[in-house]
């Protein structure tokens, strides 16, 4: 696009010279200086806060580093250690369990909520209320739930007992991951629902009219019309929420701190523990690098599989 406009500019004043004149610097650069001006602030932020730390992290992953003394280069030793580290594989397994539980419940609940809102109300108040849990800080949410789910004095367990059932150790080894997944589902459902809701509003009503003229049932309309047309939005929602879900940390730091045993030692908490409690910053950097590659791969796969770049609406 830019190169076309650059060439178009001299042609706009035809007739003076038969041959195109040697182009000035300004002409050759075209919109570039202006474009750079616009992109620069974001680029500086990206370079300083993302690119440089990422590069440094990659370098540190090849070193033995405890922060207080300078790093010493040890090649791929950290990565070799990583493949033999039982706790690393456990962390991946636990994280995967969490992500699956969290994403499935969160997406289904958000979809339900979004469709309900779309069909029943466009009220701003309702939309605001739905978003409320997301506005509360992660740590506060975790603390409040930790209190409510307390085995001995929590309100939830008191209700369970009142119903005549046995108390549940919500943060015990069997329940801890489902509980934490549930807490974060509670917090993020509203936010995800709003994203999906925005997607629903983009679907032209004419498609629904056509479906109803053809006699499609509600159920069929949802599966055959709504879901396929939501695909680009859903792709975005899934990429964002899966990456966010992998990065679970605060809830665990506040409640179980990785326990009982290693039941909730998710990858982020393991990295944190390695770095800030055990001063193995080099090894923690190696863990982070592996997580980075893993997340990039998952995001790429998701985008490819869901053909996020295209929309089925274009033809209509």
């Amino acid at each position, binding site marked *: 696009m830019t190169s076309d406009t650059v060439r178009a500019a001299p042609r706009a004043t035809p007739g003076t010279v038969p041959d195109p004149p040697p182009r000035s610097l300004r002409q050759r650069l075209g919109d570039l200086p202006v474009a750079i001006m616009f992109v*620069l602030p974001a680029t500086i932020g990206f370079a300083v806060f993302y690119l440089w730390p990422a590069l440094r992290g990659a370098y540190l992953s090849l070193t033995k580093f*405890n*922060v*207080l*003394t300078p790093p010493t280069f040890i090649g791929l030793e950290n990565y070799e250690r990583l493949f033999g580290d039982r706790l690393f594989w456990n962390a991946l397994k636990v994280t995967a369990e969490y992500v699956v539980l969290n994403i499935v419940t969160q997406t289904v609940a958000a979809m339900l909520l979004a469709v309900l809102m779309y069909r029943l109300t466009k009220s701003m108040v309702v939309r605001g209320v739905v978003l409320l849990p997301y506005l509360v800080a992660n740590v506060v949410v975790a603390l409040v739930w*930790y*209190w409510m*789910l*307390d*085995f*001995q*004095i*929590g309100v939830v367990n008191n209700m369970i007992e009142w119903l005549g059932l*046995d108390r*549940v*150790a*919500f*943060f*015990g*080894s*069997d*329940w*801890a991951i489902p509980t934490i997944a549930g807490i974060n589902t509670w917090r993020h459902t509203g936010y995800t629902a709003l994203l999906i809701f925005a997607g629903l509003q983009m679907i032209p009503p004419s498609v629904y009219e056509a479906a109803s003229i053809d006699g499609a049932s509600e159920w069929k309309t949802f599966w055959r019309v709504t879901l396929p047309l939501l695909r680009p939005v859903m792709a975005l929602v899934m990429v964002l929420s899966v990456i966010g879900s992998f990065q679970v940390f605060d809830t665990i730091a506040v409640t*179980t701190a990785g*326990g*009982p*045993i*290693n039941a909730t030692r998710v990858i982020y908490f393991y990295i944190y*523990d390695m770095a*800030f*409690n*055990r*001063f193995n910053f080099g090894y923690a950097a190696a863990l982070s690098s592996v997580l980075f590659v893993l997340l990039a791969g998952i995001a790429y796969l998701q985008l490819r599989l869901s053909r996020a770049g295209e929309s089925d609406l274009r033809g209509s």
Partner: protein
Amino acid sequence: MKRSLAVAGAAVLLLTGCGTSGSSEPAAAGGAATIDYWLWDVGQQPQYQACADAFHKANPQYTVKITQYGWDDYWNTLTTAFVSGTAPDVFTGHLSRYPEFAAQGQLMPLDDFVAKDKVDLSIYQDGLADLWVTKDGKRYGLPKDFDTVAVIYNTEKLKEAGIKPEEMAELSWNPQDGGTYEKVIAHLTVDKNGKRGDEPGFDKTKVATYGIGSNGSGAGFGQTEWSMYTMSNGWQYGDQNPWPTKFNYADPKFKETIKWFTGLIDKGYMPSLDIVNSGVGMIDAYGAGKYAMVTEGSWNTKTFFSLKDVKSAIAPTPIGPTGKRASLLNGLADNITAGTDNPEASWAWVKFLASPACQEEIVAKEATVFPAIKTATVKAEKAFAEAGIDVKPFTIHVDEKTTHLAPIAEHWADITATMTETMDSIFSFKSDVNALDQANATVNGLFG
């Protein structure tokens, strides 16, 4: 472009401005200086602020600026402050953290100062000053307080069970049948139907009040969880202390103690690890009447006695197979950072914190902790008594010489990681005590 450069320049200035504000200003005319001092316990800030005021009065050229961070933030902030050169001049140190900092050259040894000013180290409770000397013989701190462990119990529950307070002071324990100590715990346990733990028909799956509370598996330290049992059974953490080269977690004495202790969970007298992990904290559960008694460190005394719904009293930890009681003796001290601008001022402040002027005249009267100085301890006991708390069961260990120095070792964070996993696993009955063999080998491998 020029403008944005200027803005960037201003930003850099701002950043460096922030950077230096953390550390003290270099000594101005007349040696005046501000000493930056960090601590984590918000409950102790008032008494040390009072010490700081008294210090400023005695040394008008020095001003102390106190900053408080919560326990977790404290260590992260301190680590990053060391890296960025914004660390405080003086900070409250912890035995589990200072060996690492000292090994990295971040702390200033105090030996020259101590020798020059002829500081009398015999005024402190025995052994406390030794905790702050590293393996290479350098001293990094002067003791400011100490703590021991005792039993805190709910007086109402004790009365309901028909147990007299005098009995609580004479309990004994052994790893075979638990002795009179376990009998009391069993009798204090009550299920939903009102049956006590030692009565037929007791339902251990539906316990309303546990005889003894739990704070978790205790990892490799077990200070308030199991150390008073293992050590009264004749067990020691390592081959020597401080600075062991071998740990004894695979010792039969340790194993039989842990086996007996986890047996309390199986019998329904103590909550399982799952329950403990699903609880906000031992103090809250105790405050709600879910635990009849707990084993706790002296630093939490005030917290227990300020609980609204329960009345408490203190009893000493039980006498073990060695015929003696046991308690770990642990304590805090203040460390000076190696990068301080004002070693002299920092030392003056540390010396003041460790002196009777601060500990005896100010800290002891607050009745929150036991000051490290022997004479100040007596004053603190009195202050506690005036507040209606008999703390003798904590200090009895000092009088009867049944204290054991807390283990000071290198690689403590790594030891904790291994032992947390193993002890959690034993406490949740996923493995038996023989898992300690492997754990002990891993721990000792760190010292290879």
